[in-house]
């Protein structure tokens, strides 16, 4: 069974203007997105800024309220839950953030930060059991037990991200949404955090939704990869398949734009014209058609392509994907 099943999820933000804050328009940050995550699997989510990947991640852990659609976690729809009903289930899914400093309270010690999660969910029967768990968690993420007494500002960026991971692990979640967890870190430290996330997955069977804009990192850590553009999923496939044989022209351009270290690779760079359009006024038809090198009018302008299975397990939202 799937751990998570997202069906036709929509997150629309109202844009308010003028007197009495009338709603003028909607930003369709996430527009009709469906996917699944299996237990212990890593699903990578890539896209450029403004494509809705962070909003999607936050909606799944219910940090933003979905407008429509369902989020089935172990078969149970959490999209409409709130209050204490939601809080009990929150233990199963956690999130780690891009800026490890901004997501840690500067006035709490590391022990308090991790302990707070344990307290909220009543996971320790005694003070000594609580202390023991904090020490275990710190060790699990490669920190020293002595660090429990220190404050976030005393740590480097990589260590702070480890604290964020320890806090997420404290409630023994089955799914962690990782929102650009290594983008803010130095290159030499990124690999440490990626390895740590992979080790923890192997030991504990946690599933990840791994959100990032770095395709190489996403390919490395994920079993399957999902590509978003203007609030919609344009391609979803096995990581190896999507990188070696992308079906959607946007994915093709995205992959070709990644600078590669190997000087002998004979790769042709597809440079897309223009910018990502504003999600407030997405183009009609296929949202990618104004920048698409192989768009065919009038079809691409008129019809919005559905996400369809072009090969077993390989989904693409393009009229002409084969």
């Amino acid at each position, binding site marked *: 069974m799937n751990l998570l099943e997202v069906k036709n999820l929509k997150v629309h933000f109202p844009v308010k203007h003028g007197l009495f804050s009338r709603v003028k328009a909607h930003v369709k940050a996430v527009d009709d997105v469906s996917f699944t995550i299996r237990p212990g699997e890593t699903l990578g989510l890539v896209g450029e800024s403004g494509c809705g990947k962070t909003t999607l991640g936050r909606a799944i852990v219910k940090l933003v309220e979905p407008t429509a659609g369902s989020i089935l976690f172990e078969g149970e729809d959490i999209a409409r839950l709130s209050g204490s009903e939601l809080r009990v289930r929150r233990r199963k899914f956690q999130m780690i953030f891009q800026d490890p400093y901004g997501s840690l309270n500067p006035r709490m010690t590391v022990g308090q930060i991790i302990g707070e999660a344990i307290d909220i969910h009543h996971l320790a029967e005694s003070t000594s059991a609580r202390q023991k768990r904090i020490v275990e968690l710190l060790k699990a993420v490669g920190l020293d037990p002595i660090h429990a007494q220190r404050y976030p500002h005393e740590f480097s960026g990589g260590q702070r991200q480890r604290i964020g991971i320890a806090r997420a692990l404290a409630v023994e979640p089955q799914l962690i949404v990782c929102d650009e967890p290594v983008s803010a870190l130095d290159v030499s430290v990124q*690999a440490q955090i*990626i390895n740590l996330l992979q080790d923890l997955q192997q030991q504990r069977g946690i599933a990840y939704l791994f959100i990032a804009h770095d395709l190489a990192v996403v390919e490395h850590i994920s079993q399957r990869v999902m590509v978003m553009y203007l609030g919609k999923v344009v391609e979803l496939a096995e990581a190896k398949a999507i990188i070696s044989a992308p079906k959607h022209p946007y994915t093709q351009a995205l992959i070709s734009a990644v600078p590669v270290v*190997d000087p002998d690779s004979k790769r042709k760079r597809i440079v897309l014209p223009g910018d990502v359009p504003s999600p407030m006024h997405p183009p009609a038809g296929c949202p990618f058609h104004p920048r698409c090198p192989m768009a065919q009018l009038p079809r691409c302008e008129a019809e919005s392509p559905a996400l369809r299975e072009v090969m077993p397990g390989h989904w693409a939202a393009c009229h002409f994907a084969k």
Partner: protein
Amino acid sequence: MPLLEIKNLKLDFIAGDRNLRAVDDVSITINAGETVCLVGESGCGKSVTALSIARLVPRPPANYVGGEILLNGRDVLKMTKSELQAIRGGMVSYIFQDPSASLNPVFRVGSQIKESLKLHRPEKATDAEVIRLLKLVGIPAPESRIKDYPHQMSGGMQQRVMIAMALASEPKLLVADEPTTALDVTIQAQILDLLLDLKKRLGMSILLITHNLGIVGDMADRVAVMYAGQVVELAPALELLRRPLHPYTKALMNSVPKLSGNMQRLQAIPGNVPSLGNFPSGCRFYPRCPSAQPECAKTMPQLVEVEPKRWVRCLYAKPL
């Protein structure tokens, strides 16, 4: 004569009663028409080195302790205020990481570009020249765009405006400090293509600062890798990418995943980048170096030419 010759540059930051060495004995030359990449992680001194070329690091807290920066044979460190004024944005132009922070939000982009023209080429300070520059950097419909304020443009467009402004003075050297780090990959590809094209057409030199080794292969003729205030490896770009000689360069290349790389596990570099003032004695990389020897803790290696054109700061670097 090279266009730019930085010789044994040493720069301290004064923090209270401590002198923190941020740039230590850095030597880099850039020839006319050449692109040199400066690669390193945060805090390695790459930006401070680049800013020093037009002496843009405020003194204090900075203090130049030694070395010289020869621009067309003249030492920038000895120039007077008015001489500096002439080279800043004149012979040397800069573009930075975050274009929205570099543009003034209350002036139209056209008048901001014109300001640069007024200072360096007053006879050309016209709308027509501004439009020509915007066209040069690939901004569509420049006639209407000169009336835009920065916030009306996307990040990629703003960076193009910054480049237009930098080109206004027809610089000999363009210093680009992480010009694409804040941009999305598809926009990054556009900006890098533009820089390559402009270099070809205008024949200027580029000093490109980046932490992304992938960009090096696409852009650079030569690369300098910096670590903890020092250049640890200096080599022609393709040779360095094919066969890195310094353990730090090797480790850096192995720690980033590659597309279709089929790597089971990344080879992480243990520990953290040492912070300013906490550099280890001896070789600065030895606490994190996979091939460190006891001698590395005691002796600071010098940058030596181990093969023709290949300079490495490691006691155990071996030529082929």
